[in-house]
């Protein structure tokens, strides 16, 4: 049996993942591209005795920019030994898709052009002559729709014949002075798997990563000197490429002017992108989502807890052996995991996927930018921060949407102040239950204030040159529910396979420590902390051991102070306890995720600093409040 490896390349929102879904179904694997934080999705399927592995790359506009996503696509193109590429083109803006297609043709990789959104384009009065486009580019051009599966079979047919496509289907020629520079450089290129013309063009486009392919770095200075009369060679290359793309597009496109454009989209944007209404609606939307999650979360959590409790009570009546302890604590952990996973994580991802596919998320990002920029963060960090309200661990992974590692780490550090569902449970269940709603809200407010101070501090200390806002706002579309579900599942896999087992382990670890009486050893030496917080010394147990599993914090507090906390703690103490357990990287699972993303040193440093900061802040807060 033959094996093919085919790369899917296209702009953001062009329908790459829908196409992958249409080609192979939802069974995909998500993995990091080696050495980067960018995810790629792979899936295999056999067609007529040929097994094709499809590799879905991140959405990009060009392969010559320097973002991590673009580098990954470029690497995949040359290092994965691909047999060909499917460029997914957007019929509503063909020239833009052709820009990237031309780059890939420049790299001399066999290419098939899959034309998406043909119906959308026709609605807008744009008709594309695929046969003509095929003639001009000398590559197969297949109109298709992954949602209705129209054209998918034809696309597969073209891919199966990919070996017959010429590697030099279309050569883009530049102005004479650029051509002679390309010629000069390509004669001085070491042996690589990449075509020397392509390497030469990338060198002229000032991509320093390609300088290593030169036999002699002096060549570049010589060429630059010879180009003295044409100082903007890189720009001219981009312009020629885009110009050719739009020229080819114009040749194969017929535009029928429409009487009236669809106005609804514009009307929605008039509100959502309004200076004031935009931020307001975004805020309201987020509050509504938060409210829905909290309500549904409480509901499912209640049902699940009573279910597991009845199951566990039958176990706990048995003799107290280590085995039952392990079983009980482990099961509690799993039950907790499921009761967080179902409502908070899965629902959250579902809503997020919906917002994304409808086109609302990008508008929210634009509006959030105003606030986040003041904190030294790009608008995009809004997505991981919002996810942090569900669970810090998957949210940490979601920081990958940001372009620089500095931005990723800065955002991750703010998870210390974005209460996850477990921390919300402490605030609502302990502070709110025993101290009243007002007190619970003041814990939220304190955590928020602490976060603002932290963010401003970091912004001052390590100024990050964040990328300026440059975001395409996709048109509003009807989402495909199947796609949204598939995407949510891919996103929550981490939670199911990593977080839930760790929750069980955390529970078991605490159980063992508790049974052996080891937990009480820390009470005395750590008493300065409780003194600083103005809390009874025993409360150090839930504060410290809550790190093993945050959801145990409440239960631990009850077990050390007795079932009615309001007898042991006054309102101010309940507040302080709430703040002390809320601020900081919450648990070892979050720490584990941070280590995975940022390495031991930075993860541990962040966790310790944030916890110490939280304890200091809680102590200061109650002192200030008691003076006032």
């Amino acid at each position: 049996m033959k094996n093919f490896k085919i790369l899917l390349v296209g702009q953001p929102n062009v329908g790459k993942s829908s196409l992958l879904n249409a080609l192979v179904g939802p069974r995909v694997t998500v993995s990091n591209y080696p050495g980067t934080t960018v995810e790629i999705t792979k899936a295999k399927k056999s067609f007529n005795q040929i097994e094709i592995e499809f590799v879905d790359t991140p959405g990009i506009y060009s392969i010559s920019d320097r973002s991590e996503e673009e580098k990954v696509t470029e690497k995949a193109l040359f290092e994965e030994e691909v047999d060909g590429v499917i460029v997914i083109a957007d019929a509503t803006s063909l020239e833009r898709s052709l820009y990237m297609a031309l780059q890939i043709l420049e790299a001399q990789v066999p290419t098939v052009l899959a034309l998406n959104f043909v119906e959308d384009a026709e609605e807008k009065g744009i008709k594309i002559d695929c046969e003509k486009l095929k003639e001009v580019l000398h590559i197969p051009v297949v109109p298709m729709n992954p949602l209705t599966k129209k054209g998918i079979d034809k696309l597969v047919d073209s891919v199966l014949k990919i070996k017959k496509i010429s590697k030099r289907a279309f050569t883009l020629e530049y102005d004479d002075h650029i051509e002679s520079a390309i010629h000069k450089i390509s004669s001085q290129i070491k042996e690589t798997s990449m075509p020397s013309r392509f390497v030469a063009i990338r060198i002229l486009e000032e991509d320093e990563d390609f300088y290593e392919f030169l036999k002699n770095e002096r060549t570049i200075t010589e060429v630059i000197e010879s180009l003295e009369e044409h100082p903007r060679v890189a720009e001219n290359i981009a312009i020629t490429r885009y110009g050719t793309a739009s020229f080819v597009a114009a040749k194969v496109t017929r535009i029928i002017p429409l009487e009236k454009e669809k106005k609804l989209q514009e009307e929605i944007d008039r509100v959502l992108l309004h200076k004031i209404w935009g931020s307001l609606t975004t805020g309201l939307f987020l509050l509504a989502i938060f409210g829905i999650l909290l309500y549904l979360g409480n509901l499912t959590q209640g049902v699940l807890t009573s279910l597991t409790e009845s199951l566990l009570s039958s176990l706990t009546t048995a003799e107290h052996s280590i085995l039952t302890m392990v079983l009980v604590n482990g099961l509690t952990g799993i039950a907790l995991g499921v009761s967080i996973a179902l409502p908070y994580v899965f629902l959250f991802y579902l809503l997020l996927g919906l917002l994304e596919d409808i086109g609302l998320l990008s508008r929210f990002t634009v509006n959030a930018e105003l606030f986040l920029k003041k904190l030294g963060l790009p608008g995009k960090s809004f997505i991981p921060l919002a996810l942090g309200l569900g669970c810090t661990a998957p949210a940490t992974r979601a920081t990958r949407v940001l372009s620089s590692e500095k931005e990723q780490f800065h955002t991750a550090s703010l998870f210390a102040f974005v209460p996850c569902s477990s921390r919300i449970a402490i605030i609502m269940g302990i502070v709110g239950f025993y101290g009243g709603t007002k007190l619970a809200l003041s814990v939220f407010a304190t955590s928020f204030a602490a976060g603002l101070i932290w963010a401003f501090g970091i912004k001052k200390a390590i100024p990050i040159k964040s990328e300026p806002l440059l975001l395409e706002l996709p048109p509003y579309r009807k989402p495909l529910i199947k796609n949204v579900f598939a995407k949510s599942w891919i996103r929550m896999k981490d939670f199911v396979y990593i977080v839930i087992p760790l929750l069980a382990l955390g529970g078991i670890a605490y159980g063992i420590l508790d049974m052996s009486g080891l937990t009480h050893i820390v009470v005395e030496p750590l008493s300065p902390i409780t003194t600083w917080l103005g809390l009874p010394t025993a409360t150090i147990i839930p504060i410290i051991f809550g790190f093993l599993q945050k959801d145990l914090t409440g239960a631990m507090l009850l077990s050390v102070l007795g079932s009615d906390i309001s007898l042991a703690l006054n309102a101010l103490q309940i507040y302080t306890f709430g703040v002390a357990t809320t601020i900081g990287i919450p648990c070892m699972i979050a720490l584990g995720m941070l280590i995975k993303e940022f390495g031991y040193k930075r993860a541990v440093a962040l966790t310790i600093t944030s916890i110490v900061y939280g304890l200091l802040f809680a102590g200061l807060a109650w002192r200030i409040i008691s003076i006032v």
Partner: protein
Amino acid sequence: MHAFRRVNYLFIHIKVNEMIAYEGASSKLKGNVAKKPVILEIVKEDVLRILCEKRKKTSLETIKDEIKVVHGLISEALEELETDGLITIQENLILLTGLGKESAKNILRKHSVLENYFEKTESKIEAHTAAHILEHYVSREVINNIKKLSTLKKEGVPLTKFELNKEGMITDITFSDYGLFERIVSMGIFLGEKIIVTNEISHGIVVKIRNKKFALDRDIAEEIKAMEYEKL
């Protein structure tokens, strides 16, 4: 003059691309592959222009000298022009008919607009060549735009100063950083494109280009210059 240079490149790409089409197609014709009506049209227009410039009966040899494509293609073009009633051929000498003169004048008019435009930045011979090649492909609308652009005194204004919901044309993109420039271009924000600023947001603007919407930071919008169509 800066803006001129940039806009100039917009048209140079067309030149480059057309040369490929020219050569590519003629080499294909040598191999007796299918006819390329587009190329034939180009040759036909060229023949008409040359005849009009010479203002008299012209020999087949002169035409072959001027148009550097395979001779089979010229003969084919002449045949079609004759059937269309645009030229008459008498003993190797070719003459424009009344109808032919009219369409040749149209071509020449396009030619001179383009040539004027290119003279601003290139040498006379280059301008002439560029105009030659472009005249076949550029629509009347574009010709009018070039006419306006070539008489343009002021440069465009930054998008940040652009009036809301007014149609304009991108006249310049002035990033010093090539990475950003390339990203902007690859997203479809390109010279000569029609642009509308649809919304003002607190830290930038939202623009619409060819059915696509983009949110741009103020710093980015500052570096993209455009002119209102009404002022062009």
